């Protein structure tokens, strides 16, 4: 990113190659929307280009990237307002010819997904960053601008909340 900052804009293509999938994963987990997540990824990279001079190189690039992604997500949710389209998960856990056991597992995972969606955005975000984005507690603390201890508390609460919700349906 420092090279991009110093004017080598072509290096942005490398960053896109490396990070667009995890970024898409984060935004998709937070919204459940394929198209909107793709738009937001594009938007995040555009903002990176425009505000490249604000990247100091002191922190991790990933932390800065998720900072921008959270802002883009916030704008998106504000624009979308109360209107929340149905999450597009239905065709993701694929397979028509599953044996009974697999079918049961598929339903379990779908149920778990629903429960993750029903968590508060704060809890969901911290779980997604930790479980799907493989961010360390210190990195999450950097992204959310909170202390590492606060991250641990949030993750603990989120997992407990999810466990209670999930076990209720079992």
């Amino acid at each position, binding site marked *: 990113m420092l090279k991009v900052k110093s004017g080598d804009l*072509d290096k942005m293509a490398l960053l*896109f190659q490396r990070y667009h999938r995890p970024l898409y994963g984060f935004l998709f987990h937070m919204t459940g929307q394929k198209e909107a*997540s793709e738009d937001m990824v*594009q938007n995040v990279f555009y903002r990176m280009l425009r505000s490249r001079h604000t990247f100091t190189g002191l922190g991790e690039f990933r932390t800065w990237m998720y900072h921008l992604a959270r802002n883009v997500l916030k704008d998106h949710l504000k624009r979308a307002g109360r209107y929340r389209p149905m999450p597009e998960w239905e065709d993701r856990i694929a397979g028509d010819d599953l044996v009974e056991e697999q079918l049961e597992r598929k339903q379990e*995972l779908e149920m778990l997904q629903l429960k993750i969606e029903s968590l508060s955005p704060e809890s969901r975000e911290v*779980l997604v960053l930790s*479980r*799907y984005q*493989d961010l360390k507690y210190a990195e999450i603390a950097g992204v959310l601008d909170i202390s590492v201890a606060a991250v641990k508390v949030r993750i603990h609460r989120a997992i407990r909340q999810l466990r209670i919700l999930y076990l209720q349906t079992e």
Partner: protein
Amino acid sequence: MDNQLTDAEKAEMEQHLADCPECRQQLEDNHRLWDSMGEIPVPAPSDKMQVRFDAMLETYKQEQDNRRPGIAFYLQQLFAMKPGFTWAYSLIILVIGAGLGYAVSRGLNNAPRVRPPEGVAAVNPPKSRETDTPVTTVTLTGSAADRGTANSGSAADRGTANAGSATNPDAANTGNDISEKQQLKVLADQVHEMREMVMLALLENPSASERIRGVSYASDIKTINKNVLDALFSTLNNDPNSNVRLITLDALTRYADVPAVRRGLVQSILQQGSPLVQAAMADVMLRLQEKKAVQPLKELLEQKDLNEMVRTKIKQTLTRLI
């Protein structure tokens, strides 16, 4: 759960778990949940994301090439490197402002007061100057058109100069209505003309995003004239940026009812080199059911370096057009 505990924390936890079956059960549940979460697959992003990113990067690079960094850019860079400079800069501006303000107020206080020439009263004009009042009103009112209205209006109100207006004030009002409508029309025309001028100027701008803005202005213009059409077609055929050309094609398609626009669009098919625009052209022709496009589309097929996907698309378009 994802092994982020320190060794000491881990040891402490294990010791506690050995004595607490309830916590052991909870931890097991958590692990099960954590593993299950990992099994939920995420759909892969579509391939068009890469295409869109490349187009965005290319457009941005072109814009940057055309723009020389101004002082604001360097200041932004400086502030990003040393946030403390922001405060220093604000302080300097404040000091300069205060200094200027002080200097100006001192200058005003020291300036010699202007004294009126002898024989002319400075404050209250004599009553004999009352006859000048209408002239003053006219001067304040402004433009030539306004002046006409103000004259007739004030004359009618006073019932002095114009006998017709004095005897029939309604006639004067009707005249005012008509002239107001005329003024509105003139204003609307002027706004329209200005919009057109802004649009034409924007189309000449070196920045691609400004040119796109120009094209979007064209979409708002209700009655399109030859100047605008010429500018749009020139953009469609010659603009170096394919995004701008695509937007222009979209804008022009809205006026496809005009025969000249249709003709221009058909003629433009062979001028396009970018696969994206070629494919969009084929779509437009199909939507318009324009049979005259068959010949140029066939000629396009004969080009050897034509993109394979575009070739397939044009073939499909041709079978549906013929």
